């Protein structure tokens, strides 16, 4: 089992080795020190943008993100690549009118949607010199709220836009058709049947079997990146806390980390420990809820009731100790807003012990229950090869044997002082994903115990001092869904000039498309829940 795992992320080069590889392979790099944080940044020529991806993809380097930043008359484009010990940021510039870049998608399928998004928002066109590669020319985030020649993240585009009184529905998006005798289409959404977020799924099916699924997202695009511009860091933190409500702690931590790196603010140790406690509690709450919901999707409501019970008790404890059931707005620039009293340490530790006892009883019951496992096993398989090819992250990747976890690979404080175990499975099916999430709860419980036992003394926050000059920073946090990348640029007055949060869902939504072929239509909700991409975190 270990052998399979070792061939993946652990064979990736270190960040420094990757830079050497690029330099030796005809992609000369120049170090850039502007973006502060735990990542190395190098500038490359824009015409070598595709070639750099080609070199990286040959060496197990994972593609993580791409984003733009308008500094007239140029667009600064940055891509994040993950090596075995952290991230390398590639940077280049293109003109803000008629700018174009060689696509990285031929080497990294994960870059496809983000590059289309880059075009929608900045007008940076992509092309490829690979003769046998087809590049998807369709828009991605843009529906009908702004026109094709308008790009909302250009500085000349007003935040109010020029919307019509009524934005028409997006009926003209062309889906890839499937033809053949007995093949039919099922359109679903944007308003779904359950209590979930909106998006459109287009299935091609034959009989009960799904032939293919195509996602059309962007329905909850509410302009988060544009709204961030001009806010101070505290306003940004409030916005970041609402990128994806289920990941409020992780996103606000990533955004604050980016601000703190940019402005050289050192968070007190106690503040960092409390952030980690919040983040692990968020991970556990979501895993509990989803394990119950997955089982319920195959008609096993016992698990929904039991895990719903555990989640509710957990959230009530959040409210008691941190004043909010989701711990929203507790992470703030410079630290946290709520301290943990000695009495609350005891309360939390009792809660941990109680949850561990419950799980010891409940999880084996699920994992061994034949009629439940019969439905979960071999359903929605994401092979290791596919997970690696599409660059999946989080439990979706780990359940297929690809074990990226920032808390272990490129640990940020306070994870640099603890050992983080990374559970994995090699099955890649729904059962594997449920199993991995169960195991991850135990890891988080152990981490919580150790953070609470060794809670540093001292302040929980420091003042976020005013910045003296324009600066930028990167935040990298392992949320419960996987790796979050957050980029923040501040101007000379300390106001946000650019905020880009890359939710892990960008890298797991394609996994759902990849694993659904051959699954029966009634098992789609189950597979969807087992991946659980965020619509809001993706749509921004």
């Amino acid at each position, binding site marked *: 089992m270990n052998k399979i795992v070792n061939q993946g992320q652990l064979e990736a080069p270190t960040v420094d080795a990757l830079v050497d590889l690029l330099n030796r392979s005809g992609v000369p790099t120049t170090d850039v020190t502007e973006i502060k944080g735990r990542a190395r940044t190098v500038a490359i020529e824009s015409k070598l943008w595709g070639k750099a991806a080609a070199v990286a993809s040959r060496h197990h380097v994972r593609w993580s993100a791409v984003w733009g930043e308008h500094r007239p008359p140029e667009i600064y484009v940055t891509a994040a690549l993950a090596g075995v010990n952290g991230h390398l940021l590639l940077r280049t510039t293109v003109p803000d009118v008629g700018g174009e870049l060689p696509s990285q998608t031929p080497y990294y399928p994960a870059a496809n949607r983000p590059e289309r998004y880059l075009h929608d928002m900045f007008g940076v066109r992509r092309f490829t010199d690979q003769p046998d590669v087809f590049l998807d020319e369709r828009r991605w985030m843009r529906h009908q709220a702004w026109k094709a020649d308008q790009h909302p993240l250009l500085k000349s585009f*007003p935040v109010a836009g020029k*919307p019509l009184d009524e*934005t028409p529905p997006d009926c003209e998006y062309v889906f890839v058709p499937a033809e053949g005798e007995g093949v039919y289409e099922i359109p679903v959404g*944007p308003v779904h049947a359950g209590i979930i977020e909106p998006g459109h799924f287009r299935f091609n099916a034959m009989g009960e079997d799904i032939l293919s699924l195509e996602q059309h997202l962007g329905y*909850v695009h*509410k302009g988060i990146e544009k709204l961030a511009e001009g806010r101070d860091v505290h306003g940004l933190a409030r916005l970041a806390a*609402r990128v994806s409500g289920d990941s409020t702690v992780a996103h606000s931590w990533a955004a604050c980390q980016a601000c703190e790196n940019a402005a050289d603010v050192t968070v007190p140790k106690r503040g960092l420990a409390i952030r980690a406690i919040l983040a692990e509690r968020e991970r556990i709450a979501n895993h509990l809820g989803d394990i119950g919901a997955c089982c319920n999707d195959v008609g096993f409501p016992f698990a929904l009731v039991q895990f719903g*019970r555990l989640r509710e008790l957990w959230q009530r404890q959040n409210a008691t100790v941190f004043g909010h059931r*989701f711990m929203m707005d507790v992470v703030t620039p410079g630290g946290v807003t709520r301290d943990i009293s000695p009495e609350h340490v005891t309360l939390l530790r009792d809660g941990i012990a109680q949850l561990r006892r419950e799980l010891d009883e409940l999880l084996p019951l699920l994992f061994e229950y034949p009629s439940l496992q019969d439905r979960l096993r071999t359903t929605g398989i994401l092979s290791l090869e596919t997970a690696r090819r599409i660059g999946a992250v989080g439990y979706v990747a780990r359940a297929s044997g690809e074990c990226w976890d920032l808390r272990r690979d490129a640990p940020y404080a306070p994870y640099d002082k603890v050992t983080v175990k990374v559970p994995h499975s090699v099955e890649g099916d729904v059962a594997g994903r449920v199993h991995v999430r169960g195991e991850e709860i135990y890891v988080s419980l152990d981490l919580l115990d150790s953070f609470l036992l060794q809670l540093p003394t001292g302040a929980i926050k420091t003042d976020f001092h005013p910045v003296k000059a324009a600066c930028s920073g990167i935040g990298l946090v392992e949320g419960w869904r996987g790796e979050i990348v957050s980029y923040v640029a501040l101007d000379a007055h300390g106001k946000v000039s650019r905020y880009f949060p890359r939710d892990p869902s960008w890298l797991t939504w394609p996994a759902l498309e990849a694993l659904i072929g051959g699954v029966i239509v009634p098992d789609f909700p189950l597979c969807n829940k087992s991946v659980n991409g965020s619509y809001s975190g993706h749509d921004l």
Partner: protein
Amino acid sequence: MFDVLRKSLKTGCLTEKLPVRDEAVSKAGTACQKEIARVFGKSMAVRMVDAGSCNGCELEMHAVNNGFYDIERFGIHFVASPRHADMLLVTGPVSRHMQAALKRTYDATPSPKLVIAMGDCAACGGEFGVSYASCGAVSNVIPVDAVVPGCPPTPLQLLEGILTALRRR
């Protein structure tokens, strides 16, 4: 099978008189039931529409259905289609990309119908307001009977909000 039954029996009945502000909420639930009887008959079917939410409100909608709150005991049931619904529970600032879908969902809901805007975003635009991408409050797009403030509203606040909407009928 035996393990499942044993665990279920041991867990017992979770549904409780709501723990925080206990009396107020039991009262709210019972009052809801009375109002539902007056406005709709025996029960009320709710269709939720996420029109741009961050998903926080949706998580609390799941919570009101868990064993502790068990909103169905007050005759309130979440349904899959607006055509089966008496009430729309709308969350989020209305993104421009969801504007048409929200209006169509509203039109598909038979009268008499109630609309509740759940959460600060739905009530007033919240952190997002009106922009190139967002229409802001739900009332900017469809008529709203009541708003439930909170980010997100707790299960108890949601129940009280439903009661407020019913009382206005």
